């Protein structure tokens, strides 16, 4: 999927559709400008390696992992800007989490243009730390689904009836020169920072929710990833995801699976000097129960979740002919712990992780975390 007219199409579409209405121009600035944010601090009894693999007796670590500030400005009732800036690791890494213009084309259809979060899986767009129970995000959603993942693009966000929601974008493609044996496609993300746009991608997600607490989701991504570098091959990436969640009476059950296929992985592996998986697979199942039952009418708003999660992920599930799968890429993580929420958007967390891989290496570590969102 290539296009040299991508930027022109993006601007033309924006210009054609964003006819401004000045009906609300009399609003006060404080009615138009809104702030949001979230953050989390971590203690890990053993730090993980950059590659997300098991190492011998890594040292303990503390980290202000994320501190994020967000702004929204309503130009008119139908047009707005939304953006977040992430100051990671005590602001030593700064990243534009997303920044887009949104225009309501119809009551339940909006156009988005700019840096958008990829609508793949349940976590990437809803990644605020009070939304998950563990101190760290599920590792499947780091090594297989590279959260937080944003690309520059254009697309539609909407609802079909009361129960079905969708997002569909055309975005800049991944850059395969960053693909890795253990982190898969993670370092191929463009971040919207002078990112290569020779290759484009299409991505879409559907979500369906019932009244009894069941929600179902499915996502698909397909795009080129060699960005015109013929030495990498004609690289394509296909991602499929399905997820289900059931929340009722204090119980929270969740299952998530991601599958990725990399086209021309043999040429790419040769070029990079690393074994890039032709297919990668990650999944997890999680169960949690709120002993304080915040969901009850008249509850104080407090919650105490006990949770457990089992996840497996392999970035070398299938490798090209002539290459050998790295057994350290096939990992299993079992996590269990507590998340106490004194109010709805503040969480204090403690959990224990046990890692193993196909080399029979293992690691057990203890984590503490504090997180907020507003």
């Amino acid at each position, binding site marked *: 999927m290539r296009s040299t007219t991508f930027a022109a199409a993006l601007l033309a579409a924006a210009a054609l559709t964003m006819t401004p209405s000045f*009906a*609300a121009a*009399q*609003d*006060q600035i*404080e*009615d138009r400008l*809104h702030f*949001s944010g*979230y953050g989390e601090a971590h203690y890990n009894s053993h730090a993980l390696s950059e590659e997300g693999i098991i190492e011998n007796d890594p040292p303990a670590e503390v980290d202000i992992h994320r501190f994020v500030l*967000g702004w*929204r400005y*309503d130009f008119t*009732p*139908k047009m707005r800007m*939304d953006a*977040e800036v992430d100051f990671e690791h005590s602001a030593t890494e700064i990243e534009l989490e*997303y920044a887009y213009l*949104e225009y*309501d084309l119809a*009551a*339940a*259809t*909006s156009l988005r243009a700019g840096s958008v*979060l990829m609508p793949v899986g349940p976590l990437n*767009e*809803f990644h*605020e730390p009070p939304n998950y129970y563990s101190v760290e995000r599920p590792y499947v959603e780091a090594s297989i689904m590279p959260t937080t993942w944003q690309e520059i693009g254009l697309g539609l*966000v*909407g*609802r079909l009836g*009361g*129960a079905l*929601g969708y997002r569909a974008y055309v975005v800049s493609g991944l850059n395969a020169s960053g693909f890795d044996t253990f982190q898969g496609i993670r370092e191929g993300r463009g971040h919207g920072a002078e990112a290569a746009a020779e290759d484009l991608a299409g991505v879409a997600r559907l979500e369906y*929710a*019932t*009244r009894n*607490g069941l*929600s179902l989701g499915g996502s698909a991504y397909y795009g080129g990833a060699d960005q015109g570098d013929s030495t990498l091959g004609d690289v394509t990436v296909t991602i499929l995801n399905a997820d289900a969640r059931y*929340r009722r009476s204090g119980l929270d059950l969740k299952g998530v699976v991601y599958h990725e296929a990399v086209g021309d992985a043999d040429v790419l592996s040769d070029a990079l000097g690393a074994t890039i998986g032709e297919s990668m697979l990650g999944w997890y199942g999680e169960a949690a129960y709120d002993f304080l039952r915040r969901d009850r009418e008249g509850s104080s708003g407090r919650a105490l979740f006990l949770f457990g999660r089992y996840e497996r992920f392999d970035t070398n599930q299938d490798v090209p002919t002539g290459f050998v799968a790295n057994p350290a890429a096939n990992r299993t993580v079992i996590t269990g712990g507590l998340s106490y929420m004194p109010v*709805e*958007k503040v969480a204090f967390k403690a959990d224990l992780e046990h890692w193993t891989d196909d080399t029979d290496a293992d690691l057990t570590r203890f984590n503490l975390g504090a997180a907020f*969102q*507003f």
Partner: protein
Amino acid sequence: MISKLARAAVLVATIGSVSIPVAEAGPPRAAQAGGPAAVATEPAPFARVYLAIKGCTSCAHCRTTIRQMVNTKSAGGEAHMSADQVEVRYPKPTTVPLKDVIHSLAENRLHDLSLVDVLFEARGTVVPGPNGTATFKLAETGQAFPVTIDKAVRRPTDGTAVRLTAVVDGWRTKDKSALSLYARTIETN
């Protein structure tokens, strides 16, 4: 009645806390709209529905979803969102689909979102009925709602054009067909 007034107080406090700028704390937005404290450059719209919500409005995707759910049922009303309320404005006289707007959030399927209370504000007249009952008729549309007016609220003379701000009741019951209003303020033009 006490519980109704208590709910009204909670709702007004909620709306007030959201809309009051830090630098110039003053009356809640509902009072500013058409009362003596109104901002001269911002004429109050014909009608407004305030939906006080609890739950996830922090992330952009939830805000878009909430806005779209309301827009779908508001029949042309303009949805404005803040941290814990959605305000639906009707700039010009029109029939307000109050029940549909309320149900767009009262019966939503988002796990972390619940509708807490509803306030309705509009131009119209109060028409007295038998046994102390009254009806609020919206100006120019003929749309009417039964309204309860407490003794503490000044009741206008029949036919006087007013701006009514009222708590909406009846949407929590299984029989959602009959909405009614409990007047909080009645201001004459």
